[in-house]
């Protein structure tokens, strides 16, 4: 089967700093790929390259046989196929929860308001937040906001979901409610690329683990293999850093 997402020889520099060096990856439909690695290893940058938020210096990102490139005229069309949730709760502060969710369906996909609202409410119900629909983001907790951000991405019916350290800015007691939503999406068979620091979560959700360091993919494999007996020394040291 052809992969849904293909990354070929991706290079990305920030001036002299090589953020990504020759990164290759393919993701099958329904696969959950989790990227782990030390801070500054390029995993977030990599994710941002996947939906054209970063210019790339060399290589290709191909989604559904179409090249993703920030300069492309049809980049907005391609981005609709990619849902992204960021680390900071980035809801639009001047809009209610419902308005946040239906803004893109209405304006980008030109959907009918009634139809979009109905689906928005169903999705909000699913993450347990339909009662917050008329509230503003500032009235919600971090975890709640992050769940709304996931709904906002889901309503676009993306073919692939990108999660960029979605729990890193949350208080510990709110991490679980967000991860449970992500986990339930994985069980549904959605295609996802997840960057996270939550190792237990990575183990539970991943079909495949990618370990990055210094802008390169160092190691990849099944979660049980990676966490039980990592092949490279760098991965071993990285995993040790999570133990006390």
């Amino acid at each position: 089967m052809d992969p849904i997402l293909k990354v070929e020889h991706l290079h990305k520099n920030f001036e002299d700093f090589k953020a990504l060096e020759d990164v290759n990856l393919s993701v099958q439909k329904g696969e959950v790929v989790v990227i782990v690695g030390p801070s500054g290893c390029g995993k977030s940058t990599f994710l941002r390259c996947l939906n054209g938020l970063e210019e790339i210096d060399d290589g290709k990102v191909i989604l559904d046989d179409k090249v993703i490139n920030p300069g492309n005229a049809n980049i907005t069309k391609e981005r609709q196929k990619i849902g992204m949730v960021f680390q900071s709760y980035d809801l639009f502060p001047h809009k209610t929860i419902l308005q946040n969710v239906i803004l893109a369906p209405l304006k980008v996909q030109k959907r009918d308001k009634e139809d979009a609202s109905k689906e928005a409410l169903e999705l909000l119900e699913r993450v347990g937040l339909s009662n917050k629909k008329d509230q503003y983001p500032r009235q919600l907790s971090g975890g709640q906001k992050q769940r709304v951000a996931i709904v906002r991405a889901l309503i676009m019916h993306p073919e692939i979901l990108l999660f960029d350290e979605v729990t890193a800015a949350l208080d510990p007691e709110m991490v679980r409610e967000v991860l449970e939503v992500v986990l339930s999406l994985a069980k549904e068979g959605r295609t996802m690329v997840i960057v996270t620091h939550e190792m237990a979560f990575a183990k539970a959700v991943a079909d495949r683990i990618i370990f990055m360091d210094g802008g390169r993919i160092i190691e990849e494999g099944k979660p049980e293999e990676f966490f039980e007996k990592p092949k490279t020394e760098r991965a071993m040291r990285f995993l040790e850093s999570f133990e006390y």
Partner: protein
Amino acid sequence: MSSFITSMGFDVLFKGTNMIRLLQGLLVALKISLISVVLSIVLGIIIGMLMSLKKPVINVISRIYLEIVRIMPQMVLLFIVYFGATKALGLNVSATAASLIVFTFWGSAEMADLVRGSLISIPVIQYESSYALGMTKLQTYLYVIIPQTVRRLLPLAINLITRMIKTTSLVMMIGIVEVLKVGQQIIEANRKTSPNAAFGIFATIFLLYFLACWPISLLSRYLEKKAA
């Protein structure tokens, strides 16, 4: 009661056409401020947006422009344009035109700085999450960035507008007969019959300015509440 009105100098208001003249003077001041406020808002938004692009050339020019406006008293600017330009450049600038030029020059700079500040205060993630949802640049500005910018801008802009209205009282220095000048004329003309006119006239002018600016304050409060 009537002795109170006289001793406070309010009696002079009811003599001849004095009250109407004061109101006409206020209209002159308001006309100048209204035109320059509208021009300043339009130009300020354009300049402020250019400034937020962070292009070096624009930065240098706008920096110099802002500094000039900040350092120079408005009165000096008025004198330069009205007396200086007419003599030195041989231009025949009317007093009204000179004050419109100066107030727009000043207001645009301040407005531009407010627009720039409000624009750059919107976090980058707001743009990125809009793009990630498939929005175009135009849609991002229209639905996400501008509404948030306007909300931050509104109270600051209103403050600037009221300041501009108040500062138009300076134009009497270049011979425009606006409310303050009319007031002085009335006081002078009635010095013998109403020696206390000064208090009554200036208190009335105070009230007139208050009536001109208060609705704007109310409007701003209403808009802020509505936007919140």
